[in-house]
């Protein structure tokens, strides 16, 4: 698959989610394409995270989801738990907002990097370790062999997020959902992570959903942009169009709130 080919890797149609009887998503539509980064913006509480979690069936206790999430000809919402487990981590992977809390503090990097590889790919410990070291090198962790033996607290925040990305990429997924992967990191580290994601997307033909409420980040890496408000996608389209000629008043107000007009600092 090349980046030029436009293939819908994942389609979300009319996704509704309620948590404990309270509606949080009111019919979200989104399409992710292979080799493209789809930016998802929107204010806090608009439902970005819930959209991502719904894809993997990881909604909080007491949630209900309806609508359709089409992936590989199947509806993920209808999929039995066992089959969904074979999609999670293997075909669709996720990176979470806070690298300090999304890696297990008591397990070595090797364990967290190889466990699902061995499970999904059925490879042995030695092969898995080799792959893991190669992955760490790919996300530019210095001394990958040594790093495998260490624990998350022995790395900086930016490194941890790179490790989390390596974990997500370990089984060569087709779709990567990155939920605000750089919010917890400082600006210089942020740029590195975003470049990494962009590169992976181009090189591996990965379909990326990049959740962020930072339109600056968005303009730097996204191909498509969607904007959410109150559990609905209010605007979606190519980055240039959405950021330069927003059609929805809400998108415009988000843009007005930016110190530097987007597009002027795009790569």
């Amino acid at each position, binding site marked *: 698959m090349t980046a030029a080919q436009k293939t819908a890797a994942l389609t979300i149609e009319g996704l509704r989610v309620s948590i404990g009887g309270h509606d949080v998503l009111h019919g979200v539509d989104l399409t992710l394409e292979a080799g493209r980064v789809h930016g998802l913006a929107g204010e806090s509480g608009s439902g970005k995270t819930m959209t991502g*979690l719904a894809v*993997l069936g*990881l909604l909080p*206790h007491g949630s209900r989801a309806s609508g359709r999430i089409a992936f590989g000809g199947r509806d993920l919402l209808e999929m039995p738990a066992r089959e969904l*487990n*074979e*999609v*999670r*981590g*293997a075909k669709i*992977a*996720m990176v*979470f907002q*806070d690298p300090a*809390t*999304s*890696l*297990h*503090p*008591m*397990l070595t990097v090797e364990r967290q990097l190889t*466990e*699902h590889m061995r*499970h*999904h790919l059925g490879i042995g410990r030695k092969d898995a370790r080799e792959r893991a070291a190669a992955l760490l090198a790919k996300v530019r962790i210095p001394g990958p062999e040594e790093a495998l033996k260490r*624990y998350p*607290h022995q790395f900086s925040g930016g490194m941890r997020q790179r490790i*989390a990305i390596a*974990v997500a990429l370990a089984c060569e997924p087709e779709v990567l959902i990155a939920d605000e992967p750089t919010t917890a990191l400082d600006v210089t580290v942020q740029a590195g992570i975003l470049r990494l994601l962009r590169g992976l997307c181009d090189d591996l033909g990965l379909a990326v959903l990049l959740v962020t409420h930072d339109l600056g980040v968005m303009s730097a890496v996204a191909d498509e942009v969607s904007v959410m408000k109150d559990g609905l996608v209010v605007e979606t389209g190519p980055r240039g169009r959405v950021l330069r000629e927003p059609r929805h008043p809400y998108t415009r107000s988000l843009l007005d709130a930016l110190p530097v007009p987007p597009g002027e600092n795009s790569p």
Partner: protein
Amino acid sequence: MRSPLARFLVRRILTALLLAVGITLITFVLTNLVPGDPVAANLGQRAVGDPAIVAQWRADHGLDRPLPQQYLMHLEGLLHGDLGTSQQSHRPVLDDLAESVPATLELAGAAILVSLILGVGFGVVAALRRDRLSDHVLRVLSLIGISVPTFWLALVAFYVFFFRLQVTPGSGRIDPGMTPPPQVTGLYTVDALLSGRWDVFSSAIGHLAAPALVLALYTIGLLTRFTRSAVLEVLGQDYVRAARAKGLPGRVVLFRYVLRPALVPVITVAGLAFGSLLSGTVLVEAVFAWPGVGQYAYKSATTLDLPAVMGVGLVVGVVYLVINLVVDVLYGVIDPRVRVS
């Protein structure tokens, strides 16, 4: 020695040894602070009236020397396994303890084992079945376990199961007619197994079951509650969601990602709960006529048998020390972040 875990273990064990010396000092000072004259408690009415006898008695027991010297004598004795002679039984305290300590260890050990298995097991089940029927049932049961006073439960259990229903054997550690198994560990169940005496083993287990369960009930309830909330807390952590996002099977997520961090607060509570479980043995031993340290301590304290009281204090102190050491070591084994500090 190079691994952080090994260094951590050595440090903890050295600290424990130091604390053990501290315990000998504390038991010594405490027993010397008690208001009450051992002379009056140990000599008859007539003898107390005779200064010569009293002086002789005090000299015999080293009570006429200055306190620091008494402590050093005490410490030197300890190093030779000499805990003094019980003023009550006129036997070495060590021999008395050698009989009563294993009895209590067997009782408390069984209670601890049962409460760990059931308490943690129930807690995990309740958390995983959150808000369903089994969760509600377990929560009510654990509340009952925590609320019922142990001494009352012991009396009721003894009355109902022994006198009324006759489903449990009576008091003591084995059936009255039976000879105890040859002593290896002093734990009748273990010794019976070691010597292949199945009849003794089943009798010992039968006698152990009721008092151990009575003793364990509070801890089972407590651990159920703490385990439930600890597991729920961990289930809400990002790293568990991340583990699920990796598509690992539920049991792998539970055993590798959830239980390990959830056990940290549970271990803390368990360590504290086992302390109170030990004090519960005094009452339970009394009700079930279990010839353990609790009974011995009660007898020695009420007769101001100082060497015996010191011996018991030492044993109890060391047991607490061991519990704390185990808790500390478990922290280090479970959580790599603890090892560095």
